[in-house]
């Protein structure tokens, strides 16, 4: 479970960001529950767009349960290259696959926390060595070249191998983008919309199936369905 402290070196200085969670800021602004993430602002300024009368001057970091700030920057950039935001629409970044992974690393995937720490450090170290720049500040083309080198085991420093690390992150990118939003990713149903999946529902009629392309997306988590949700203690 050791967090590798070296992973923060030479990356953007986290001390410049106020230590407020995104949720706390949103709450302050009275918009808890709102989701507004500009694709141009993957981590910083996440709340500013929906903050009434707010300015863009307050840098905000999204709250993570386990990832360090520097790790989150590297991972966010990797996810955006695996399943990019592009002319075909939003990708893993907008779906907040990183939130899914961060949450899972504190729980179901806890045994892989250290693999992530070491792997993200190896990627960032390679970026620094090759370009003198953190991975997340490289151009997309430079990032792709470096990730291909990771995938083909041309870069060392991984627990296991670069290819196994890349394969694991790709798997978790898919999990985070296309799983039920309950787990923190697939925000705004971006993943399900991407595939044309009309969403979970209690049943589907023959007409629903026949006209699937025109079926309105259900826009609900499995756990929005009352049947699978426990009654709140003391009532809602």
């Amino acid at each position, binding site marked *: 479970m050791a967090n590798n402290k070296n992973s923060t070196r030479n990356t953007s200085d986290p001390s410049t960001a106020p230590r407020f969670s995104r949720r706390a800021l949103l709450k302050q602004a009275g918009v808890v529950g709102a989701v507004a993430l500009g694709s141009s602002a993957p981590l910083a300024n996440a709340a500013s767009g929906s903050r009434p009368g707010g300015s863009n001057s307050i840098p905000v970091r999204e709250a993570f349960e386990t990832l360090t700030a520097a790790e989150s920057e590297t991972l966010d950039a990797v996810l955006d290259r695996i399943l990019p935001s592009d002319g075909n629409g939003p990708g893993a970044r907008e779906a907040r696959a990183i939130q899914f992974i961060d949450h899972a690393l504190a729980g179901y995937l806890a045994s892989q926390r250290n693999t992530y720490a070491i792997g993200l450090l190896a990627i960032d170290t390679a970026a620094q060595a090759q370009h003198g720049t953190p991975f997340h500040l490289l151009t997309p083309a430079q990032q792709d070249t470096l990730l291909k080198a990771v995938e083909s085991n041309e870069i060392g420093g991984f627990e296991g191998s670069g290819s196994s690390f890349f394969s694991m992150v790709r798997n978790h990118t898919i999990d985070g983008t296309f799983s039920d939003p309950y787990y923190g990713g697939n925000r705004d149903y971006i993943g399900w919309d*991407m595939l044309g999946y009309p969403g979970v529902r209690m049943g589907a009629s023959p007409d629903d199936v026949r006209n*699937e392309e025109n079926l309105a997306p259900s826009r609900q988590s499995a756990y929005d369905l009352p049947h699978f949700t426990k009654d709140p203690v003391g009532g809602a």
Partner: protein
Amino acid sequence: MATEMQKTDVVVIGLGAVGGVAVLPLVSAGLRVVGLEAGSWLSTRDFAPDELRNNTRDWPQSVQKANHEVPTSRANESEAATQASGHPMMNAVGGTSLHYWAQSWRLNPWDFKVVSETTRRYGANRLPAGSTVEDWPFALEDLEPFYDKVEYALGVSGIAGNVQGRLNSAGNIFEGPRAREYPMPPLRSSGFTDMMSDAARRLGWHPFQGPAAIASQVYGTRPGCLYHGFCDRGGCHVSAKSSTAVTTIPEAMKSGLLDVVTHARVMEIVTDSNGRAKGVQYQRGNETIFQPADVVLLASHTYENSRILLLSKSGDFPNGLANNSGQVGRHYFSHHQGAPVTALFPHNLHNWYGLPAQGVAIDNWADDNFDHSDVDFIGGGNLWVHTNRRPMSAARMSTFGKAPGWGSDWKAFIMQNADRTNSSYIQKTTLPYESNYLDLDPTVKDRLGVPVIRITAEYKENELKIAAFTQDKMEQWFREAGAVEILRSGLGRSMGPSTHAYGGTRMGNNPRTNVVDSTGFAHEVPNLGVLGASVMGTSGARNPTLTAQALAWRTAEHLAQNWRRIADA
């Protein structure tokens, strides 16, 4: 010191697909039954349409006893056995019948007579070398009444292909005669399954909608299937799936004669000084409990049936209960069901709301349904295509060599093709062989320090030849339906842990080669019955559950009808 419970007539180990069926004829005959189940009760609220939890994190398989006793496996004795991360079976009242695909097939007549029919038609030299296959001690006609009882007690949907000799080409014309129709029509077809059926007819084949233990309409108090998907690894949120947890077990409980004990982890079947079973020792929490009974029915899954017998050693049975013949663990095999063919179509298939049991089968190339004179194998495969798609697995689709595995080109590919692929499910005749078997692992133990089962088994030439042959047929079918790309998966060799696991306590008249007799009771222990696919000596080319359930009903009914002789002898 074990707490001793009050004696019961029958103790059943495992209330899953088979134990959950057997209890009904027992209590109907007035017998008092204690059912020991390692898992707990689950409810429809547990069965959310959640792909991550069900399919990636293997819930509910991962949270029960079975996961601490995953078998180790190796292809042959020259290899080291390794342990997989998860167990294919689960524990709960209802067992794996809660989350199985629910395809509910009868075996074909040939499956009961592989040796004699192969010899008669092609000569004895056509039986694969090293195979220990035997004819069953009875024929399909003898099991037919019990298939019928289970189909009606559980609620199976389907369309008969042969009612008392009258063939119906909408059903499987290769099946043996049945007394009457299914209790419900088949699950509905879909645009995709209709397209595949049309293609099969153009090839001159006989497509039909397969049987499923899923209500297709209201059945008793249960609703018909709502087709929301997610039931290939999950339970049904409206109890349309006819698991024993919502059918035979609650029905048996109405009698007041069935006592269900959950969280009961069975350690041993105990014998008396005469070598007869006298009860079962189990753990519940920190407590050790002894349940005395006149008759013991062992009804766990195939791996656990052999394991409990091998662990139940005594002076009379130094190598494990009912194993003085050395046959416990022998004749093991798991279905060759891998090696799928995957197709890409140039249009959406509308499969987002479907299920594995909603599909179309081709039986023309299964069993001995075609002339084997010019091929170099016996048996065959059942071709199955079905509607079942979920988003995470759709994103993991093959790119058929047309796109890389990540980046913008990959994204564009999965966006276009997520609903355009289909992967076949081909189950093949798999035979038992001398060199394939189960025993106790010499080093790997479960949480309680008890050895797990070790699988030593690999597919032989006959299975691999069937796999290649049926892949050809499957590719032909997909191409006729308009597929533009085809991918054939590797044939595989190792027979690892499987839901379709057979043998270990094979049924047969010869006590030197079989553990149980033709009624399901042990040759060496007359008041010990064994239920499950572990008694099956052949697999056919179709899912085992309904056959295992029909056998369980048959053994339970035999016990009830011969109670005095079996219980008091």
